[in-house]
């Protein structure tokens, strides 16, 4: 069995296009080298993962499944921490290893208290391999009504819309400021922490808390959106260009009279 695995892996390595020699392109881990070339059931997670926010941030298979991504022969050895498919009840703790704030709120919520008794885990709403950046669209009739009515979910969603819009607008603004060479680092850090607080807090499912916190966060965001205003470059530019054109005009008038 193991021999087959190695042959398959070698084949996969030949088929895979060689990574660009230029620069230090990250080495493809063995999980992907092997799984990408296997039948759908075993290769689908790779294709799905490649589109995920985790892939974008370099969070690879072993972050959740354990094992050794550098050693093909022993990659799936439990001794190397390989845990395979996590049990549903252990999912919140697993995700919570990185997403701590969210897990705390989730565990105290109706969702978390129903863990192991048919309650949703993280992957129920967010998916597992194809995880994308969380957005309001996740709170949808389709998702929520698989277990309960949409009424309360809709209330929560409405309470979040304004803050979400503000977050997006500020993000856009930061990209613009960045493209003008303005140092947005502190702004970005603050936005990140506010967005984090906002997303974590949602998982409490407590409408009053969400409304209160949203108001706080909105107030903070108001402050942020005022920062880093555009300079007076426009007016100075008009004056400077006008000055040069006027100079050209004067010189050409003198020239015309001398010629």
């Amino acid at each position: 069995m193991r021999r087959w695995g190695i042959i398959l892996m070698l084949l996969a390595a030949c088929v895979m296009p060689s990574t660009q020699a230029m620069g230090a392109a990250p080495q493809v881990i063995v999980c992907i080298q092997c799984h990408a070339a296997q039948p759908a059931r075993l290769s689908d997670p790779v294709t799905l993962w490649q589109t995920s926010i985790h892939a974008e941030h370099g969070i690879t298979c072993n972050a959740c499944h354990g094992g050794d991504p550098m050693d093909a022969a022993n990659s799936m050895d439990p001794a190397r921490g390989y845990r395979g498919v996590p049990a549903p009840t252990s999912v919140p703790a697993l995700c919570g290893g990185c997403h701590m704030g969210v897990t705390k709120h989730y565990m105290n919520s109706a969702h978390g208290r129903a863990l192991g008794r048919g309650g949703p885990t993280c992957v129920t709403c967010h998916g597992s391999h194809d995880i994308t950046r969380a957005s309001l669209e996740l709170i949808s009739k389709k998702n929520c009504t698989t277990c309960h009515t949409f009424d309360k979910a809709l209330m929560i969603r409405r309470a979040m819309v304004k803050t979400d819009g503000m977050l997006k607008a500020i993000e856009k603004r930061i990209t613009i400021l960045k493209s003008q060479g303005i140092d947005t680092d502190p702004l970005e850090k603050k936005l990140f922490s506010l967005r984090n607080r906002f997303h974590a807090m949602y998982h409490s499912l407590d409408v009053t808390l969400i409304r209160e916190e949203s108001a706080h966060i909105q107030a903070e965001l108001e402050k942020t959106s005022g920062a880093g205003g555009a300079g007076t470059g426009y007016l100075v530019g008009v004056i400077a260009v006008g000055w040069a054109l006027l100079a050209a005009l004067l010189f050409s008038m003198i020239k015309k009279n001398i010629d």
Partner: protein
Amino acid sequence: MDDSKRKFINICLGGVAALAATAIAAVTYPLFRYYLVPPTDKKSGGKTSIPLNEIALGDAKFFEFNGVAAVLVRKQDGTLAALSAVCPHLGCIVQWEKDRQDFLCPCHAGYFTADGAVISGPPPRALAKIPYSLANGVVTIG
């Protein structure tokens, strides 16, 4: 060349001179500021904090304060003094002499007390005092 033409050219030349003058004026001052001012660190608000336990009794700690060398002395009796470390004679940086509990300027042998007063040598006046405050074991200078 007739007179009206000459007059017109002179007016234009005047315009050119005016433009040149405005350009020089508009560029010189900002360039001067560009050259002159590396903005001071805004975050600390021109203040420096030193935990008291960093300095042993009878010792002194040198640091930079608003871009100039400064020193904080913790005298044997436990009292503090925050001083400019720049000798008022020719601008050398004074040294703390722990055994004699005084400052020596190595350039022309000017001596100062731990409080900055001149003992001997060419310095025309005492080392400048810097205001400080002590709270919770941390000395805030400035």
